[in-house]
């Protein structure tokens, strides 16, 4: 009667199996929603940047507000040195936001609810930030693990903790987004299942929960994209402006 709440995360092949060497790169529903997200982002921002009127129309206003929102977020957290990475963080924020929001539409697939996707993004950010840090500061970047003003006795312990926390960044970054998305959608599915199984008599309570959860999940979808982008900015800030 009620479908498995995890079945919404199933990835399945659309069209034929494509293999490159030993790797299966078939077009799946995940690929479909990645393409949908990127195409809608490009469409909206292309429309929003086409005309340059002094009084912007709605779509232009949307594009420009997003631009200034992300640009302010970057300059607030990582300073003016992070300007060259604006395009990447903007793309990242928009990609995660659109993938999350597409997932809110019933019968769609949430790309960001898969650990492999968020982990690849987080790992790319982690490697990129580390490379930038070493380019900017050389081996001085290792000072990041040695906070100033720590008693010498505690220093070895602190350094170990710092290294572990640094290395766990990609994991925490990816798991945060993936777990939030998965938990939210699973919960919605479970409550949706309750509506069906309790029927016309008892279904109203889980239905109202489901409605409330939808609002909450839209908020979470935005918030997690924001958190993902702002954490990237903070990591970038560590690499660009060494504080320790």
């Amino acid at each position: 009667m009620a479908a498995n709440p995890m079945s919404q995360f199933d990835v399945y092949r659309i069209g034929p199996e494509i293999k490159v060497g030993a790797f299966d790169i078939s077009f799946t529903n995940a690929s479909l929603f990645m393409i949908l997200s990127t195409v809608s982002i490009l469409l909206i921002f292309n429309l929003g940047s086409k005309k340059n009127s002094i009084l912007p129309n709605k779509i232009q206003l949307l594009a420009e507000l997003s631009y200034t929102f992300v640009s302010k977020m970057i300059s607030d957290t990582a300073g003016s040195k992070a300007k060259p990475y604006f395009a990447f963080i903007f793309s990242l924020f928009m990609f995660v936001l659109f993938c999350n929001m597409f997932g809110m539409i019933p019968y769609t697939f949430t790309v960001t609810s898969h650990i492999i996707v968020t982990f690849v993004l987080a790992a790319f950010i982690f490697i990129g930030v580390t490379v930038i840090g070493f380019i900017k500061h050389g081996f001085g970047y290792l000072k990041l693990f040695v906070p100033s003003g720590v008693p010498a006795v505690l220093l070895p312990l602190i350094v170990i903790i710092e290294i572990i926390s640094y290395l766990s960044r990609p994991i925490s970054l990816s798991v945060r987004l993936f777990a939030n998305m998965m938990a939210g959608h699973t919960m919605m599915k479970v409550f949706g299942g309750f509506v069906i199984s309790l029927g016309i008599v008892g279904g109203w309570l889980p239905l109202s929960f489901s409605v409330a959860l939808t609002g909450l999940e839209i908020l979470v979808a935005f918030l997690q994209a924001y958190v993902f982008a702002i954490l990237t900015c903070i990591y970038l800030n560590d690499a660009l402006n060494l504080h320790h």
Partner: protein
Amino acid sequence: MVKKIYFQSIFFSFFFIKEAFAAESGGMPQLNPEFWVSQIFWLILTFGIMYLVLSKLILPKISNNLESRKSQILENIEAAEKQREDSDAKLKEYDEIISKSKDEANSIFNQAREKALKDIGAKREVLDKQIDSEIAEAEKEIDALRKNAPDKINKIAIETSSELLQKLIGAEVNNSSISAIVDDLSKRNGDKYYGN
């Protein structure tokens, strides 16, 4: 009765859900590595293309639009400021012209007044002179009249007295003797009448 059915249905439905979930439960599809490579490949492809298009084509345009709007607004503000300054200067100029013309009008008025006063003075002088000369003439006439008056009075007195005497006495009286008497009398009384 209805209440009882309601709660029973809720109670039983939980059993159904439990069974349904138990029957269909599998693992997390996220941990099934079957499509990991495909997802990584499509992620890199779509994200990469989107990043390239956004960073090379769209974002520069948006920033350009924002900049041009900013600069245009600043330009407009500057132009407005300039126009305000211009209008201020023109207002000053206008005020100056007005005050200048006021001064001019005042001076013209003063000049005209002075001229009028001068004219009036000149005319008055002429009139005064005329009046003076007329007065002098009149005085002369009066003097002449005054001088002639005693002689005429004497003559009248002589004639009157001679006629009187003729009527009273019936004889002709020598005029010369009468005139001598009248002259004598008038000389004596002349001071009393005329106050000379």
